[in-house]
């Protein structure tokens, strides 16, 4: 075996072929086969049946509408939070900063079911705020505000975690220059910060949206699972499955799966943009690069 000392395994060596086969089999069996079978099963009775399962069932229609409402609200809240939190963490130093950063990650390691339960303990009828909410005639649990809260919780880290490293990499110089030239806070944000972080922000938004559309556990707990009222698309998938209406369930699932594929395509595209920008930044900062601000060291 010492006759080929240069590489442990190449694509054409027997070991390399074996490794590739193993990796392709892993991804194929665990990921591609399930994904393909969603679409095959959803269209097994023809596109007509697929369309009817989606459009002619009022509860399913309502679930699609509810998902398309709840997810954008949660994503919008998280976008505002993400930008504010990234600005705070990447541009200022203050006591408790690292504690704050680790709190951002807590939703990743809390089971969504536990998060949902915590919301029920606060906003539910027997919860901490239950009597107050009843007096105000506001319904949070078993209603859409609960869905928004639960979805916001599970997607909380996604935008901010995307922005912090990019903002730290870019550094505060351009923003400080803008301030010293007399720009106010909003002008700095809209004209300097936002253009610099737009791809990272979009990346976070796309990921948060995918997670928001697909969230099940947390939403299940706070929704009460009421068909035609608080069922989102993933909950509808489960309800139809429980009612032994697997083809209809697959039809809804296929819409969610198509959305996931779209997300991945968008993600690959955005990552390419991010890559280009970080290379440009690298080039601009490289020693000996043209540091004239008008060309930014980018042009030939």
């Amino acid at each position, binding site marked *: 075996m010492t006759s080929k000392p240069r590489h*442990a395994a190449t694509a054409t060596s027997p070991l390399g072929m074996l490794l590739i086969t193993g990796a392709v089999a892993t991804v194929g069996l665990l990921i591609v086969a399930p994904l393909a079978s969603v679409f095959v099963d959803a269209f097994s009775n023809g596109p007509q049946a697929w369309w009817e399962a989606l459009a002619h069932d009022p509860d399913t229609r309502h679930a699609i509408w509810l998902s398309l409402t709840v997810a954008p609200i949660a994503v919008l809240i998280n976008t505002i939070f993400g930008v504010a939190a990234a600005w705070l963490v990447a541009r200022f*130093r203050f006591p408790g900063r690292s504690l704050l950063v680790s709190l951002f990650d807590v939703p990743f*390691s809390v089971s969504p079911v536990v998060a949902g339960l*915590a919301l029920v*303990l606060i906003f539910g009828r027997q919860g901490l705020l239950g009597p107050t909410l009843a007096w105000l005639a506001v319904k949070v649990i078993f209603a859409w505000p609960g869905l928004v809260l639960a979805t916001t*919780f599970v997607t909380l880290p996604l935008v901010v975690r995307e922005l912090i490293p990019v903002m730290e990499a870019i550094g505060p110089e351009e923003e400080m220059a803008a301030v010293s030239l007399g720009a106010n806070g909003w002008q700095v944000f809209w004209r300097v910060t936002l253009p610099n972080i737009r791809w990272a922000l979009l990346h976070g938004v796309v990921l948060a949206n995918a997670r928001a559309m697909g969230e099940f556990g947390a939403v299940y707990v706070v929704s009460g699972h009421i068909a035609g009222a608080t069922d989102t698309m993933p909950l509808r*998938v489960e309800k139809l499955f429980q009612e032994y209406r697997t083809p209809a369930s697959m039809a809804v*699932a296929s819409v969610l799966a198509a959305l996931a594929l779209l997300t991945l395509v968008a993600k690959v595209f955005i990552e390419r943009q991010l890559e280009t920008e970080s290379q440009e930044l690298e080039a601009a900062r490289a020693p000996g690069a043209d540091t004239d601000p008008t060309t930014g060291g980018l042009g030939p």
Partner: protein
Amino acid sequence: MNTPPTPSSSNRREGPPADRFSILRPPSPPIRRARHRTVLPGFGISAAITSLMIVALVVIPLAVLILRAASLGPAGFLAAAWTPRARAAYAVSLGSSLTAAVISSLLGLLVAWVLVRLEFPGRRILDALVDVPLALPTAVAGLVYSTLYVEKGWLGQWLVPMGIKGAYSLLGIVLVLVFVSLPFAIRVVQPVIESLDKDTEEAARLLGASRSQTFFRVVLPGILPAVVTGFALALARALGEYGSVVFISGNMPFKTEIAPVLIVSRLEEFAYAEATAIAVVLLGMSLSMLVVVNVLQQRLVRNAQ
């Protein structure tokens, strides 16, 4: 603004694979540039928005959960959280999550290695497909897995006659948990394999080490911390998973019922105390995972430097 190049500018984002999913990134390094008194505006408003959200959504809900459980008293807590059915559910949760995390780590190492080191047609597509479980709703995954592995399913028609039951069984739980946790195991290890120095491996081979010796003595020590971090992340993800498991497990108490499913069924019976107590145990398990991940990541960053 013209600034001289700083050493930190080369030490920024680590290239695409590490950035795939922000969760997998090592903790952000402390800011180096903000030394000088900053003149930037917006501290007040960004601090207000951030603390409002974190306090209202993370701190208060988890505090309420823990206080609710604490108000049961030690005896009441034990009576609620340590029933035979709850103990069985923890065992199923821990057992299937550990199994799934081990499988994910091994398969993840294989896939990551192939993606980094081997050039073959379709490599980029394979690389993109690895992220599917992060974008696909877990309910869809659970639904599809259960239909694939039942007796008449695509895979079940071959496997069930062989005695392999992939649906409504512990195996089914492990399968979906591997599905949801696999990307974590891959994406943590991938950038570390990329950063490995190939020369060391070549030197080992030239000095007469066999392939397996090179792997176990030279390669593995370098990537082990990342593999362990990936394992912990996969385990944390698997422990909390609900959406996919509820479809495939059959949810039989004492057999295939995981802790999150038990929480939900207690909640549906309005047994809030019991649901809360079990939730706190589960929370303890996953938060200790978070601590382990953080310690490991810090060690990882330190070793890399």
